[in-house]
């Protein structure tokens, strides 16, 4: 079971310059004022409707990777992933670079290929002049029973995904936790397939959810812009 790493340390560590209102929101409600007051007030750049998604606060600025894990970070989750090569890593090991994340399963023939296409088009748009952006793409299977490392590797090879793409599996309870933080709704059907919402999420270097699209195409440009900002 996951237990959150306490963010009390934030009360005692002065935060770096550039803190905005969004960092205020990740602090405990009864935090001690003064130590963590915003140095600079920054007006949100996004239109109000961009905040409608309850999973995502696009105003969150990301801090340096060396900063402590924040209260809004998915890297608080104690999740063990096994990748397409059978290597085991913690979800928190992805801290330090922006991550494009989605739940898929390799035998899915409808929405998942479209999710992958969307992810690839987002990544391609951020790569400049053929130079790969420093990001990771984390595609986690919602079907740990059938998606063995071998199946994940075959999928990765078939789609000729570069080394930034990590295909991974976790146990069922942990998949549920990952789905909870990404806001992916899913249900296994008697056939073994899944009904699921097509969600692509964007994590900053600290693991805060800073962008999210559900469905195809409509919010792609917004996500690309946000990822570009994170890469820069």
């Amino acid at each position, binding site marked *: 079971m996951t237990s*959150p790493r306490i963010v009390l340390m934030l009360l005692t560590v002065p935060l770096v310059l550039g803190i905005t209102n969004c960092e205020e929101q990740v602090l405990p409600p*009864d935090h001690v004022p003064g130590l963590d007051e915003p140095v600079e007030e920054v007006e949100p750049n996004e239109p109000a409707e961009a905040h409608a998604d309850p999973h995502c606060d696009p105003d969150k600025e990301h801090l340096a990777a060396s900063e402590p894990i924040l209260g809004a970070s998915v890297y608080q989750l104690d999740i063990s992933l096994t990748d397409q090569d059978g290597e085991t890593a913690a979800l928190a090991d992805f801290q330090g670079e922006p991550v494009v994340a989605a739940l898929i399963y390799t035998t899915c023939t409808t929405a998942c290929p479209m999710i992958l296409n969307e992810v690839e088009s987002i990544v391609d748009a951020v790569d400049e002049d053929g130079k790969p952006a420093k990001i990771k793409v984390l595609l986690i299977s919602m079907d740990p029973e059938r998606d063995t490392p071998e199946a994940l590797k075959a999928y990765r090879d078939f789609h000729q995904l570069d080394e930034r793409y990590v295909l991974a599996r976790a146990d069922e309870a942990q998949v549920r936790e990952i789905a909870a933080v990404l806001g992916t709704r*899913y249900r296994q059907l008697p056939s073994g397939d899944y009904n*699921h919402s097509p969600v692509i999420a964007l994590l900053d270097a600290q693991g805060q959810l800073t962008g999210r699209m559900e469905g195809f195409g409509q919010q792609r440009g917004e996500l690309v812009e946000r990822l570009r900002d994170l890469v820069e």
Partner: protein
Amino acid sequence: MKIFLLVLASMTTVGPGLWRPLYPAEGEEEITVPAFELDEAAVTHRQFLEFVQEHPEWRRDNVGSLFADEGYLDSWAGPGELGSSVGRGHPVSGVSWWAARAYCSSRDARLPTEAEWELAAQASTEEADASEDPEHLAQILAWYSRPGNQTDPVAHSEPNFWGVYDLHGQVWEWVDDYASALVANDNREDGTVDITRFCGAGAITASLKIDYAAFMRIAFRSSLQADSTTRNLGFRCARDLPKEAP
């Protein structure tokens, strides 16, 4: 008083039984739910206070925003005290899915699945499956005429067929797979409707159209996120039955 405390702490066996999802996928018209153990009563404020005292990372002034929204335990007088306006023996509310899971995990238990919860909840005081009993359904609906912030002490009313109290009539309750209700974006059976976005629009495809309360539960669960908290959303814990020795 002793008897009351025993009720708070104990589980009862529910099932096995059949549950018919309101919006079944093909082949899912009836789900066999194996027997399991379920808390007889919802977790109370007092019990949850003891939990946060033992696990201070779940105090409202410590918990990360990933795990609970700003309404987390906000009816309490303070992060570590209930105050006089909170009934100690009333069902706890204002608790996120993460916090409910953590509480159950601390008791070597888990949240019930939707199928388990619904199986338990379709029982009346007399029948294991009263899902088509008009009187039972009317009793459930009567709850909705009551203001959402009014609760009674748990185990205040008569237990149902399985010995479980208050599945209806007090607070909504978390289930572990709340996020499985219901998604249609990748539904190859299309022709079905997008009920996650249009509450009730799919009534024509529902398996049991008279069970209005079930529509409301699905709509409510569909609106939840893992960090959601409301003052009428609580939980109880479940557990697999002990495996019999070979």
